[in-house]
């Protein structure tokens, strides 16, 4: 009945038994936090505290604290929003799309990647909420609640409103998907624990007992949630791109945006997963679960999506010329050679050229190179959004209103705040939750480990 492939590399190395899997993952949750964890956690909280001064200043004084002007009315806020949402997409791609494609290697990384999705979407959602200026009235502008602040209802013709529905659905469905996967693992920790920990993890595990009937329903729920999350994740970045594509601004008004944004999102998301996983596997000694094979496969996804993004940049340029629309042509020439040329060429270098290095097997199987390139890709993807947003706006229709955007300390501070928030949440997750989906790893262990065979 069991088949061992002599061609494929084992998914889990080190000859782990089922009990080893339980032990290696639960150990992190049960042990005292290490010094390294405390240092990392306190750094994140420090950044959060530092950034919150900028956040409070923005809430108190209003968004005049930011460097926005009449011409450039959208800049770092929306750039950061799209950047964080994009990062989130990799988690769903790993847990849902790879589940539908029966890619078993996803089992070691899906838990942490989904956690990253949830935290990244929280950070992303911060920006539109703060940008409202008076977020305490935000519900009236964002949700269909009748009010007299403007029109009676919200405007369902607006892509910004579609975004409200897309992001909130994406967040809540991802959260449910993630939690359903956590329930069996919480039960494992509960059954190893005594005292207060048993009570807490007992409540978190919802009384899971691992009955065959419940597992059958669980599998059915996972499959359908994956089937729902797959079009959902594609729709989310499509709708984010509609924020730009449905406008009539040269440089934004392009039909290529939805697929190009989705590819970019997966590209940056996998880079962030790599950044986090390379650190996590090292700190928690999980090298046997998140192997070099996992890193290589993720790097291959980065080459593919990075190349799609590169083709999209070139296509945009070509179509701007081919359309014969002067405003469109100017917008693109201005991107590459105007005052923001440095941002454009940073984006081109980081996103189009650097991932091509992964064609060399030596580079894509090197942990140091992967770590550096994953940071480069994330920087490049931030510049991509900045280039699209700011360079399209800063040359207005009247040359008299042409302007530049200069970020203030509050722009930088709010961005820092989301970094602090993201890493604080991630470190809390890494300490108190099982970072690897134990049940799913056990279910693929047999076909991939020597020792489990006997």
């Amino acid at each position: 009945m069991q088949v061992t492939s002599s061609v494929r590399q084992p998914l889990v190395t080190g000859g782990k038994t089922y009990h080893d899997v339980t032990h290696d993952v639960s150990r992190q949750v049960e042990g005292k936090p290490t010094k390294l964890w405390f240092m990392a956690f306190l750094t994140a909280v420090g950044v959060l505290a530092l950034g919150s001064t900028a956040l409070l200043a923005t809430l108190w004084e209003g968004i005049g604290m930011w460097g926005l002007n009449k011409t450039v009315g959208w800049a770092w806020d929306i750039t950061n929003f799209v950047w964080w949402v994009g990062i989130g997409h990799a988690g769903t791609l790993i847990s849902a799309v790879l589940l539908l494609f029966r890619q078993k290697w996803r089992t070691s990384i899906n838990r942490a990647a989904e956690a990253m999705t949830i935290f990244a979407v929280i950070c992303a959602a911060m920006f539109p909420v703060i940008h409202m200026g008076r977020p305490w009235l935000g519900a009236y502008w964002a949700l269909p609640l009748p009010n007299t602040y403007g029109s009676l209802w919200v405007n369902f013709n607006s892509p910004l409103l579609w975004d409200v529905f897309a992001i909130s659905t994406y967040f809540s469905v991802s959260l449910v998907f993630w939690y359903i996967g956590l329930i069996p693992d919480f039960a494992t920790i509960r059954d190893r624990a005594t005292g207060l920990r048993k009570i807490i993890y007992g409540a978190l595990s919802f009384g899971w007992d691992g009955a065959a009937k419940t597992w059958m329903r669980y599998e059915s729920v996972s499959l359908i949630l994956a089937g729902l999350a797959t079009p959902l994740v594609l729709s989310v970045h499509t709708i984010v791109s509609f924020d730009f594509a449905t406008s009539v601004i040269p440089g934004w008004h392009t039909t290529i945006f939805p697929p190009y944004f989705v590819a970019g999102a997966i590209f940056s998301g996998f880079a962030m997963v790599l950044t986090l996983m390379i650190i996590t596997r090292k700190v928690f000694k999980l090298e046997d679960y998140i192997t070099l094979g996992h890193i290589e496969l993720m790097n291959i996804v980065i080459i593919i999506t990075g190349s799609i993004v590169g083709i999209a940049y070139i296509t945009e340029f070509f179509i701007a010329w081919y359309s014969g629309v002067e405003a469109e042509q100017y917008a693109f020439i201005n991107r590459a050679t105007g005052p923001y040329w440095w941002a454009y060429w940073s984006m081109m270098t980081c996103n189009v050229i650097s991932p091509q290095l992964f064609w060399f097997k030596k580079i894509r199987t090197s942990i140091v190179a992967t770590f550096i390139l994953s940071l480069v890709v994330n920087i490049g993807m931030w510049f991509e959004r900045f280039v699209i947003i700011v360079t399209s706006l800063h040359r207005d229709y009247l040359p008299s209103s042409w302007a530049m955007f200069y970020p203030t300390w509050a722009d930088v501070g709010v961005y820092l705040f989301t970094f602090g928030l993201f890493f604080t949440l991630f470190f809390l997750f890494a300490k108190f939750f099982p970072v690897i989906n134990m049940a799913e790893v056990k279910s693929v262990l047999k076909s991939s480990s020597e020792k489990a065979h006997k």
Partner: protein
Amino acid sequence: MERDTHFILGVYDDEDVLLHAVEKVRGSGVKIHEVYSPYPVHGLEHVLGYKRSKLPIAAFLFGMLGTSLALTMQFYMMKFDWPMIIGGKDYAAFPDFIPVSFEMTVLLAAFGMVGVFLITSNLKPWAQPRIFDLRSTDDKHILAIDLANNSSLELEKIKKILTDSGATEVNKKSFD
């Protein structure tokens, strides 16, 4: 409902041995209470004779509900309750309503299905599960046999069937 209290447990190390064991145990006329595993074992529901889950149907119905609610809401607000001309468009600009309708479909399908799953499987934070063997969430598969359901068979015979089917341990478990 009175819960039965006396059980015989077969402990299995391997999922393939377990699958054959379930077939053998059922074949010799013993009624199985339930099998508890640390991870989903494929094919276990077939050998136990469980019917396919109806959760996909629940997901579909909740999804349809989401679509209808979203469309009703948008047409009511934009066309009937407070019509306004926005960007020179028709009051009922149907293509613009598709994104929100799609999101609401996914939202209700996911939440509805998960809600049904939690209720039917009796999963809730204050649930007190009966744990037959603590190792069933670690590395052992536990096959539980309810003695009250198998009163026609002798205890020793059930134990022998379990041992013959490959169980590494056979234990008794009673609940108060």
